[in-house]
């Protein structure tokens, strides 16, 4: 079809297939190509089976593909699992260290190599993955010098000896792969300075830093952990504190305590941890303390499938915690979007003094893509602007007249830091009066509920309506969050087949202006594409607009929603294919 090439690297946990992937990504990046990668793995440390997908193209990619042009099988199992999916031009690299070479593919298609042996001869068995990367680079024809550059960059920090050894391994591999070139039309330009290769996890971490988050209390939980791992890595360079909490309840309450004391705080977890944070979410709500929670979704309920992906926490997130209070919910559609979504979540959470939730998922966290992130370092996340921090509050603590919950026209009360001469700050998770002292007077209660809900008007104004593509179409693939790329690609394919279909894609999910949304969606035949069983976005749209969807493509097997899956399913929907 396109010009793009997909490389699938399969093997057991602990064999380093992600290393091969990231070496190849580095080489392709060096060669000016766009990449999209995704990791599929089990909840174990050694053995079993996992794979890494790397797709490359001369133009931006929005998602992975499952049909490999190059299959790197680090064990026989991986060969058996995927060789039938090879494209016509496909090539296989099989690691023959274990001995048993499958005989059912012709030699020009399949290259069997004892990778560890080759690596040993290059100086160390641990460079087997670099040998594999070398073979694939040769199959792609990236040129050896470009590959060398990428390998050097990758290993530079580990010292000269390591670099030398890996370069030798690379060359061994490159040599071995040279007569097995894959037929393709990609052109290797040069490194493009402004582009980055960004994973969802890294983008989330950077988005938080860009919004001046400084405190990251968390408890490890897949697939939320990689976000925090990136932050921990960055903690050497920026003044932040990453603190492993004793549990998720502590994490969210630590975040609230820090935010109260003037430091922006964010925590990342998955659905199980989010469940434990629900009471704290409500505390942020009633105490009007800004915090951001990233819920990287995985299949549930309960422990579910730890390393798999899902989009099934939307309605839970919107309604979580007892009683009612305004909150934001975002679900970025790609790794690049994640940077902006997390930054926006932090900023708006601060400005409106409400909690914000960012819904990601394993697919998004563990996907990486090439693109450009615009960030102006001079454009400071000015606390005074974003949070209505009131440095001018003239009340003195002697007088004790500062009111943390002063009733205002927009529901937002000026904040001041605790323990300054500007006034005594009192914050409570009980219903409280303007002063912050608990107050259970019925009139006050209503005033405070109204105050909090007043913010909704301003909050809705900040929300971006879903993007619409091909608005004149009859049908619309409709999705939210990480299915974005797959839906876009599927739409493209379907249109080429003559299907009259566009798309409607949500990233800002709550609170939405019902009228604007109704205007946008009315008359459209919506085909929901969701990573859950019940079509939660459909429920949300129906409850907001009264518009019922036309059909639902529900994927809930724990795996990402690939473009070709959508295409297949949509073709079968009655009335869609004329």
């Amino acid at each position: 079809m396109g010009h793009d090439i997909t490389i699938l690297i399969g093997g057991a946990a602990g064999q380093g297939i992600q290393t091969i992937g990231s070496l190849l990504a580095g080489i392709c990046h060096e060669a000016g190509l766009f990449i999209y990668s995704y990791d599929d793995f089990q909840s174990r440390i050694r053995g079993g089976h996992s794979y890494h997908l790397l797709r490359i193209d001369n133009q931006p990619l929005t998602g992975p593909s499952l049909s490999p042009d190059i299959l790197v099988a680090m064990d026989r199992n991986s060969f058996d699992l995927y060789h039938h999916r090879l494209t016509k031009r496909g090539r296989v690299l099989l690691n023959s260290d274990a001995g048993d070479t499958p005989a059912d593919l012709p030699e020009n298609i399949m290259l069997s190599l004892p990778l560890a042996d080759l690596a040993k001869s290059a100086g160390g068995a641990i460079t087997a993955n670099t040998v594999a990367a070398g073979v694939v680079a040769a199959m792609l024809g990236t040129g050896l010098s470009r590959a060398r550059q990428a390998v050097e960059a990758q290993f530079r920090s580990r010292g000269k000896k390591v670099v030398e050894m890996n370069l030798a391994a690379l060359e061994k591999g490159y040599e071995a792969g040279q007569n097995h070139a894959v037929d393709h039309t990609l052109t290797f330009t040069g490194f493009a300075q402004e582009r980055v290769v960004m994973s969802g996890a890294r983008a989330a971490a950077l988005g938080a830093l860009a919004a001046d988050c400084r405190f990251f209390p968390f408890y490890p939980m897949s697939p939320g952990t990689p976000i925090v791992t990136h932050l921990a890595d960055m903690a050497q360079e920026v003044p932040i504190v990453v603190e492993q909490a004793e549990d998720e309840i502590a994490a969210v309450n630590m975040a609230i305590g820090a935010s109260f004391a003037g430091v922006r705080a964010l925590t990342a977890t998955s659905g199980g941890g989010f469940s434990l944070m629900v009471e704290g979410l409500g505390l942020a709500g009633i105490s009007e303390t800004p915090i951001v929670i990233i819920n990287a979704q995985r299949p549930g309920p309960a422990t579910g499938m730890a390393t798999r992906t899902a989009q099934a926490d939307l309605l839970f997130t919107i309604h979580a915690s007892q009683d009612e209070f305004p909150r934001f919910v975002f679900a970025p559609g790609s790794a690049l979007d994640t940077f902006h979504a997390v930054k926006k979540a932090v900023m708006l959470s601060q400005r409106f003094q409400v909690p914000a939730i960012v819904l990601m998922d394993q697919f998004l966290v563990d996907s990486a893509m090439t693109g450009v992130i615009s960030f102006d370092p001079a454009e400071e996340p000015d606390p005074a602007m974003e949070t209505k921090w009131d440095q001018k509050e003239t009340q003195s603590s002697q007088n004790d007249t500062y009111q943390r919950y002063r009733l205002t026209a927009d529901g937002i009360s000026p904040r001041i830091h605790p323990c300054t001469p500007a006034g005594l700050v009192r914050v409570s998770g009980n219903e409280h009066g303007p002063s912050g002292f608990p107050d259970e007077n019925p009139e006050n209660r209503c005033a405070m509920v109204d105050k909090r809900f007043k913010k909704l008007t301003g909050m809705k104004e900040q929300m971006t309506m879903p993007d619409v593509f091909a608005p004149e179409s009859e049908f619309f693939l409709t999705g939210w969050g990480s299915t974005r790329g797959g839906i876009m690609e599927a739409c493209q394919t379907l249109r080429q087949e003559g299907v009259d279909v566009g798309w409607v894609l949500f990233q800002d999910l709550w609170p939405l202006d019902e009228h604007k949304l109704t205007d946008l969606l009315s008359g459209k035949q919506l085909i929901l594409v969701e990573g859950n069983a019940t079509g939660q976005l459909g429920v949300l749209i129906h409850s907001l607009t009264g518009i019922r969807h036309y059909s639902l493509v529900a994927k809930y097997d724990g795996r990402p929603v690939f473009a070709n899956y959508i295409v297949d399913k949509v073709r079968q929907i009655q009335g869609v294919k004329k």
Partner: protein
Amino acid sequence: MSTSRFDIDRENQWCPGCGNFGILTAMKQAFEARNLTPADLLLIGGIGQAGKTPQYLACNMLHGLHGRALAMATGAKIANHDLNVVVSTGDGDCYGEGGNHFLAAIRRNVELTVLVHNNQVYGLTKGQASPTTALGTVTKLQHQGTSADAFNPVAMSLAAGASFVARGFSGQVDQLAGLIQNAMSHPGFAIIDICQPCVSFNKINTFAWYKERVYDLEDAGHDPSDFSAAWAIAMTPASEQIATGVIFAKEGNAYHRRLTVLQHQPLVSYAFDGDKVHSLISRS
């Protein structure tokens, strides 16, 4: 009653005769003695009768969820370790619902002064057993007596590695005020378990009951640096005698001394550096 700069004009909801009043007085006394003003103080309250304390004096106040005071306090202190943070919590709040945070806060050695109003009962919720209620005690809910051994706050604090452990009694206000001062000057996690009669729901551990049993460790010549002696005190059944005073204190790095980034300055006071963020983005 003497006046204090920490007095505020707000109705107190505790029962007349409640031990909490003595604790409140001791707190004010200690804060005065340390020359603090209301603006210098952050009081963090749990939920319960004890947790109401920060409402009854002039201070900055953070009042959140049942059991989570120490987690919030940890967050506030990490954000700005220049704050003077005192936590008012109950035996249910701290050792029951909040048990996991109690363990963790000690292990982090966060510089907090933690006052546990230990009335050996759930006061605000009307008299159920608390973790410190003695095994077999009949309560408003446990008609056949409680079915769990009592939680020993001092032993647990010591075993968890607390760097400052004291016991006070709401009936000995001056001593308690002194203990609070000590705790506040301790550079690390400081816990004072305070015997506090609940006149409404605890008919066993009454003012008189405590009075009969308490003795002052200073008078007894106890050396708070002696861990074994501290442990022996912890293991003495309260039914016999109750030691009050500083039971154990040791040196140690507070949390904010353990992290390089906090050694330079409080987290809240760093300037935002967009260039660094930009460079991290570019290196992706």
